[in-house]
């Protein structure tokens, strides 16, 4: 496969763009592998890539039941940030953000990572105090964070609703400048291409239908493309984790599947340079502008449990109301599309990258709202876990037993109700 370079772009420009080849192979499923990753989403592909790159394992297969980029990898709002403060989450998301910063170069694929800044609006002096505590924690642990006064916010984003009689008047903002957005499809393609180049076999349209166990050990997976023998297995199938877990005969998980919607408007001229977050009084809303000009909106989950990859209308209304309340100039902009993805909502709002009751099965699950930004970090830590058979010290508490130990990692302080961890 050819490396992308200024020269290859120039040469293909001269030769009618006929020199481009498929970016990854379409191999047949082999009889056995050293590591099989179930789930060809961002987390699965990133895991395979770092297994090959950092740990020198080459006999790897990634099994994807649909096609690459067809699940949540293509259903998110593309926001990348690391403003988490709980121990474990802090280190995890900061590492992930650092990987993002070098990702295009590392993958030789432009993932269009744009560190445009992430601006969370604050609506009372108390909210500024609370945000200062969180953002100071970030600064003390090697990240960047700022609090913007109202004047500074007005200088940067002059067209928000600053009316003093707004239902929630704006007092300031908490800002992470290194945060931003990336092009989600490019990340999928970039990881797939880079993993494939290092020998990883990506098998699409290959659904796992059964798990064969012997003495607490997985020996074989039955798939829609035949059986495959395995030495180690990683599950990275957010949304459907519980189903696969049950297939492996392991019972229940502290996870519920919920539906999260995203929206895009018709394209407009450049209007918003940052990622903007509005969350007060029950509202939960975030917005950014894509390179095509469409405003990408995200809101709450649909509240009820669901495996349907489609959203419902009350959230469309909520999101539209939030958009108008902070940026009234959007009044005549039309929504083009909305779509839904199934997410693993965990009992404390944090993820799982851990060993399991079976000695050669590893779990990557429970990403709640935050799977996209986490994907490089997730692949990095999960490959480290699979290769070394022990969790990295940063993520020792991201296991399934943390509830038993009373060590919940509840960033929001919302308690054991999955729908509240937005």
């Amino acid at each position, binding site marked *: 496969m050819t490396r992308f370079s200024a020269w290859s772009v120039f040469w293909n420009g001269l030769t009618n763009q006929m020199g481009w080849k498929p970016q990854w192979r379409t191999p047949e499923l082999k009889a056995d592998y050293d590591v099989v990753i179930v789930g060809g989403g961002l987390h699965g592909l990133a895991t395979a890539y770092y297994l090959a790159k950092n740990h020198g394992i080459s006999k790897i297969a990634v099994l994807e039941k649909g096609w690459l980029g067809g699940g949540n990898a293509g259903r998110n709002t593309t926001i990348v940030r690391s403003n988490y403060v709980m121990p474990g989450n802090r280190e995890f998301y900061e590492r992930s953000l650092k990987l993002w910063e070098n990702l295009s170069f590392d993958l030789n694929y432009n993932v269009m990572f744009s560190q445009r800044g992430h601006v969370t609006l604050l609506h009372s002096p108390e909210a500024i105090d609370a945000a200062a505590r969180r953002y100071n924690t970030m600064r003390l642990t090697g990240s960047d964070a700022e609090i913007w006064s109202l004047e500074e916010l007005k200088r940067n984003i002059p067209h928000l609703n600053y009316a003093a009689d707004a239902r929630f008047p704006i007092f300031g903002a908490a800002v992470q400048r290194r945060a931003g957005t990336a092009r989600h499809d490019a990340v999928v393609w970039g990881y797939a291409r880079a993993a494939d180049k290092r020998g990883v076999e990506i098998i699409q349209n290959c659904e796992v239908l059964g798990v064969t166990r012997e003495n607490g050990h997985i020996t074989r997976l039955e798939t829609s493309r035949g059986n495959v023998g395995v030495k180690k297995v990683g599950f990275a199938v957010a949304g*459907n984790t*519980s*189903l696969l877990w049950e297939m492996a005969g392991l*019972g*229940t*998980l*502290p*996870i*519920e*599947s919920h539906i999260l919607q995203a929206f895009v408007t018709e394209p407009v001229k450049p209007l918003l340079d940052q990622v903007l977050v509005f969350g007060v009084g029950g509202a939960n809303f975030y917005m950014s502008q894509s390179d095509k000009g469409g405003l990408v909106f995200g809101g709450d989950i649909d*509240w*009820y*449990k*669901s*495996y*349907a990859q489609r959203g*419902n*209308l*009350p959230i469309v209304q909520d999101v539209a109301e939030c958009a108008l309340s902070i940026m009234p100039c959007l009044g005549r902009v039309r929504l083009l599309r909305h779509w839904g993805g199934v997410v693993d909502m965990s*009992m404390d709002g944090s993820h799982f990258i851990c060993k399991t009751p079976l000695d050669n099965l590893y779990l990557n699950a429970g990403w709640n709202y935050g799977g996209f930004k986490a994907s490089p970090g997730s692949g990095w830590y999960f490959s480290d876990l699979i290769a070394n058979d022990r969790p990295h010290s940063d993520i020792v508490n991201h296991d399934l037993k943390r*509830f*038993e130990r009373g060590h919940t990692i509840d960033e929001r302080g919302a308690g*054991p*109700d*999955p*729908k509240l961890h937005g």
Partner: protein
Amino acid sequence: MIRIPCPFCGERDHSEFHYGGDGSITYPALDAPTEDWLNAVYQRKNIRGVQIETWHHVNGCRMWLLVERDTITHEIHLVRAAHDGVDGVLKGRT
């Protein structure tokens, strides 16, 4: 919009209701082993298909309901009052 036939008010939009959660959970006795409590509070069946769940008709009669709903199609199969006492009153009326 999901339409939920409330046994007290008739069929209404789901936006009138607040979603409670998994209706199949039974909490153990206060002195039950920790493991039982751990399972009741944290472990979920996460059914792909028809499950029992609780909804609160918060912008209507304010009754808690047990609803059987399909988590793939969102189809509602059965709705009944969540408490026996209320259920009895309802049955006495009809």
